[in-house]
C-alpha cells in the first residue's frame, strides 16, 4: 500500500508507469510547442526540416520573426504595462485588506469578508461582462448628467487593469493574511511601548515581516494578470494584451511565430515561478 508496507513488484511498477505517463501527458504539449519553434518549416508541424532561428530573428520578406513582429511586440509591451499596474495596485490594496481582516474588529466584518472571497466563485467571464456593463452605464451617466466623456469607461487599457485587479486582489489578500497570522504581536507592542507611532510600527516591523509574502504575492499577481484571458476578453480596447493577441492568431491559423512567443512565455513564467518558490521557501 504505502512506503512502509510490503508491496508487490507489479504494484510498484504499475504505479511508476502511471506516474511516468502522467508527466508525459503533462509536458507533451509544452515540449512540442517549444521544439517546433525551431523547425525550419512554414507550419508548426512535423516533419523536422532542420534547425532555424528564423521564427525569432528573421526580418522578412518571407518570414518575420518574433523580434521584428510589431503586433506581437506591442502586445507584449501592453501585457507588461498591465501586469505591472495590476500587481502594484493589488499588492497595496490586498495588504490593506489583510491588515483590516486580521487586525481590526468592526461591524459587518463577516459580510465584507464574504464579499472579499466572492471573486473566487465568480467565473472570469461574468466578472468581465459585469464590469463592461457597469463601466458603460457609468459612462452614459456622466455623459448625460455632466456632458463629459470619460475615456476610462470605454473598453481600454485602464478598464482591463481594473477588471484584473478586482479578482487578483483577493488572491493577494489570502496570501498576505496567511503570513500575517504567523506574526508575533508582542513585537508590535514592544515597539509601541518604546515610543514608536502606530504607522511607524507597521512600516518598520510588520511590513518587514510580511515582505517575503508580499513579494511572492506580487509575483503571482503579475503572472495572473499577464496571462489572464477570460476577464480581459470583454474589457480590451484597441490595445490587445498578449493572450488576446495570441488567441486571435491561433483562431485564424497558426505560424511558428506563435510557437516562438509561447517558448518565451514558458521560459519567462518558469523562471518567475522558480523565483517565487524560492521566496516562499525562504518565508517559511
Amino acid at each position, binding site marked *: 500500500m504505502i512506503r512502509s*508496507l510490503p508491496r508487490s513488484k507489479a504494484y510498484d511498477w504499475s504505479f511508476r508507469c502511471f506516474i511516468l505517463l502522467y508527466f508525459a501527458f503533462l509536458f507533451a504539449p509544452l515540449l512540442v510547442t517549444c521544439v517546433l519553434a525551431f523547425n525550419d518549416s512554414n507550419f508548426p508541424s512535423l516533419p523536422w526540416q532542420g534547425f532555424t532561428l528564423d521564427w525569432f530573428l528573421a526580418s522578412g520578406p518571407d518570414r518575420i520573426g518574433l523580434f521584428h513582429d510589431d503586433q506581437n511586440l506591442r502586445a507584449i509591451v501592453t501585457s507588461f504595462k498591465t501586469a505591472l499596474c495590476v500587481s502594484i495596485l493589488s499588492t497595496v490594496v490586498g495588504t490593506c485588506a489583510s491588515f483590516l481582516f486580521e487586525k481590526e474588529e468592526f461591524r459587518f466584518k463577516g459580510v465584507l469578508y464574504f464579499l472579499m472571497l466572492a471573486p473566487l466563485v465568480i467565473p472570469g467571464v461574468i466578472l468581465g461582462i459585469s464590469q463592461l456593463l457597469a463601466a458603460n452605464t457609468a459612462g452614459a451617466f456622466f455623459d448625460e448628467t455632466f456632458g463629459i466623456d470619460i475615456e476610462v469607461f470605454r473598453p481600454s487599457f485602464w478598464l482591463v487593469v481594473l477588471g484584473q485587479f478586482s479578482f487578483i486582489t483577493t488572491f493577494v489578500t489570502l496570501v498576505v493574511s496567511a503570513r500575517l497570522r504567523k506574526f508575533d504581536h508582542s513585537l508590535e507592542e514592544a515597539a509601541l511601548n518604546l515610543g514608536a507611532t502606530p504607522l511607524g510600527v507597521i512600516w518598520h516591523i510588520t511590513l518587514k515581516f510580511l515582505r517575503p509574502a508580499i513579494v511572492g504575492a506580487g509575483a503571482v499577481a503579475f503572472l495572473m494578470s499577464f496571462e489572464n484571458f477570460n476577464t480581459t476578453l470583454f474589457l480590451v480596447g484597441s490595445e490587445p494584451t498578449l493572450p488576446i493577441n495570441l488567441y486571435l492568431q491561433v483562431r485564424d491559423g497558426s505560424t511558428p511565430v506563435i510557437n516562438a512567443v509561447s517558448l518565451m512565455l514558458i521560459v519567462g513564467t518558469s523562471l518567475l515561478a522558480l523565483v517565487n518558490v524560492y521566496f516562499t521557501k525562504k518565508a517559511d
Partner: protein
Amino acid sequence: MNRSGLFWLFLTPVLLWLFLLIVLPHVDLFILSFRTDEGWSLENYANFFTEPIYWLTFVRTAVYSIITTLLTLVVSLPVAFYITKLSRPRVRGFLMILLLLPFWVSELVRVYGWMILLRESGVLNYLFLQLGLLERPVEMLYNDATMIMGLVYTSMLFMVVPLVSVMESLDDSLVEAAYDLGASKICIWRTIIIPHCKPGITSGAIVVFMLVLGNYLTPNLMGGKNSLWFTEQIYNQFIASFNWNQGAAFGFLLLALSSCIVWVGLKLTGQKLGEVAS
C-alpha cells in the same frame, strides 16, 4: 496618526474595491438582465427557456462540467497518493515543482500545444503515420472527447494540490494498522483514505467545477462546431449580436448556476467558503 486613523486607512481602499468593482457591477448585471430596448421585461429570460439552443447549451455545459470534475478527481487521486505516500521523500519536492510548473504557463499556450499535437496535420498524426499505425491522417481535434480531455488537463492542478495537502496530513500508522488487521486495498481506500481526504476533495472539486464552467478558451479552440459552451453563448450575445441585455441575463444564469452548485457542495460536506479558500 492614531488607531482609528489607521482603521480608515485600511478600510477605504478595501471598500472602494469591493463596492465599485464587485458589488456595483453585479447589481448592474442583474438590473440590465431585466431590461430590453422598450423597458422592463422578462423577455431575456423567456428567450432562454423558449429557445432550445440556449437551455440545451446551458444543460450540456453543466453536465460536461460535472463529468470533467469527476474525471479530474479520478486522475488526480493516484497522482496525489503516489507523491505523498509512495515516492521517496527526497524526490517529493522535485515532483511537486515539476507538477506545478506547467500550470504557471498561460492556458492559451497549453491549449495551443494540444492543437499542434492533435490536429489532422499534427505531430501525433505524423508519428502514427510514420509508424504505420494509421493509414491516413485522422482529425483528433474538434470533438467532445478531446475537449473534455483539454478541460481535465487545464484544471488538474487545482485538484492535485489540495489532495496532496490533505494526504500529507494522513497518518501512515492508520493505514499500517488497517493492513496489519487484514484489510484489503479497496477497504483501506474506502474506509480510511477517501474519508480523510474529503475536505481536499471538496475544495478541489469546487474550484475545478468553477473553472471548467467559466472556461472559454478550451471549448472554443478544442471543441467542435457542436460543442458550444455557455460562455461562448454569452460572448456571442455581447460581441457578435451586440444584445447586451440578453447577454446579461445569460451571465446572471451562469452565475446563479455556479453559486448554486458551490453552495450545494459546501452544504453536503459541511464546509465554509473561508475554509475552502485557504
